[in-house]
């Protein structure tokens, strides 16, 4: 998929909400560190919210960077590797206290929760997403 700015943002929101949301159901209870299952779910969904919202700013930056590429493409590998800076920023935001549910998340829980979500959504976008829509990949990632 070769993204446009609108496509990036729509895909980000859809994938974080739906695929990330489903994945959180699975991974939430087994996050390392203490706390009740309910706390863990709250922290996990809090992180997703952060990745979704802050992600919109990231997408604008990626779009700007992409302008320096002749092909206006976004190699698959970028999508994976950018999880590192995004993860660092999301962690800092999570610990900053904007959301009480994520304020006390441990590094371990964040790494497992965010890391696996990033991997799952990256794999999803680069593969099975295409099963459900034949239009998405030709429309720069736009869903509507």
């Amino acid at each position: 998929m070769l993204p446009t700015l609108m496509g990036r943002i729509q895909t980000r929101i859809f994938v974080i909400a739906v695929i990330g949301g489903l994945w959180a159901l699975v991974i939430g209870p087994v996050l390392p560190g203490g706390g009740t299952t309910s706390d863990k779910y709250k922290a996990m969904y809090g992180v997703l919210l952060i990745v979704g919202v802050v992600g919109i700013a990231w997408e604008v930056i990626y779009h700007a960077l992409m302008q320096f590429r002749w092909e206006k493409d976004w190699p698959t590998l970028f999508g994976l590797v950018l999880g590192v800076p995004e993860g660092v920023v999301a962690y800092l935001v999570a610990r900053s206290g904007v959301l009480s549910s994520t304020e006390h998340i441990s590094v371990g829980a964040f790494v497992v929760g965010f890391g696996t979500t990033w991997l799952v959504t990256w794999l999803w976008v680069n593969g099975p997403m295409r099963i459900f829509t034949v239009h998405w990949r030709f429309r720069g990632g736009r869903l509507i």
Partner: protein
Amino acid sequence: MGGRETIRMPGAVASAPDTSSSAGDLTPELIAADQWTDAMVAAAGIPVVEVPFVSVGGGIGSFVTTDYLRIAGVPKEAMRVLGNNETPWSTYEYLTRNSQIPRTERLRSDSASTPDCIWGFPSYAVREALAAKGLKAKLAPLWNVGTEPIFADYYTPKAGQAFATMEKEADRIGYFDYFDKGLVRMVRKRQGGGYFTILTPPDGTSATKRVAYKSRWVHIAVGYPGLKFLDDLQTYRQQYNDYTHVVNAYEPHEGVYEELLRKPGVVVLRGGGIVASRILQRLIDDRDHKGAQTQIHHVFRTYITGAHGPSIFMRRKGGDGWAYQGFNYPKSVWGGQLKSRMRRLEGEERAKLYKTIGGTNTPVRRLWQDQLARGRKEGWYRTHTGEVDSVVPAEAGGTVTRIKTKDGLLELQASYIIDGTGLEADIAEHRLLADLLEHSGAGRNPIGRLDVERTFEVRGTQNGDGRVYASGTATLGGYFPGVDTFLGLQIAAQEIGDDLARQGFGKRIGPLRSTAQWLRWARGKKI
């Protein structure tokens, strides 16, 4: 036009006379009239087949378009594909084989350009990995596609994989049940709506010389109108009646390589695109593995020394003469930013963007880079830049190419000249397209080819509730530039399919249908 000025694609012939006297032939009245009545066709004794949708060409364009429609729920009985080749990939395989891509070599397009699968999932790389034996062989294509184009060249599938998978899909959708063989002569408007498409079936397969297909929709995907020779090479061939020492990369020329193995020789290669790259690979592979001692002179008309383009946002890589690019257009024309930008441009502005992103180019491939670097170092690969002035026979046999370079006239002696420029002929050289321009209201776009809407409807050809669509290279210059590729043909198929669905023919492929149909596809279930 003289018979050998272009390499004729089989269906294009503009000069075959309509002189057969057998029954059911075109009458002068029909040939002259822009619109035909049912009575006129009946009076000529031409039998009529009624079917809602006809696709002309029977190549990869017809295949992917009807594949899309079948998946959109159109029954076999509602469609006919008319083409003069046995299979959808016959012409493509002929051209790729000549230009040195046998089934075992890799194509140019990417992993998700899968003409057998409208979803592009699983991609060719994933399928290659699944079929491979051993962990290393399984990981190689995945690593390649996952790290392209940063740490690896673009993954591209083997030609054989594309053919084998298309064959399987053709069987699954019952393609050959709705395929009729023959040469299509023309498409004309029918009085009252829709069109007549005139097919000339192969000799002896039909009681009449022509058969008319009466349909509401016509889709035209006839591929290349013809491939042009460089003028100076054409002049040489005709003047000296020498068709062995000067060849085009798209015509069979295996003899050249065989002769070069028998006797050391010099080759002049013309062109700076992927075909030139392939010819070089073949010549150098033969040096490396079969003991050939070929000396290569590569003539560029424009020599590209480095990155080039109008601004830092639009700079294409280049070097050693070549412009480098993975595919024939920048990748985002098939779905991203450039696709959406071109879609909004008209006339001059569109032509300008085509110019910026177009031009001859070739992918960077490590093997090719290594081979040429070695050739430069060892002195058997040399490049020259300039305009060719003339080509004449050499006294001692072979050819002399005279090139106007910036340092004056240069003469290159060579046993063979291979033209790898692949210039495409004008659309009017194709008889069917010429007829469409002349009689059915079709026009030309800002770069001179067939003018189509964003839906790939041919502008000016509407007739009542009837529509004509076109896809493939004839439509280059429209709102979508990637037309002459597998993926581009599928993008066109989607536009056409969606437009037809709006007119009630087939269904739009929404998420439910998409998922259900993908599951059928994955299990190889016939539709």
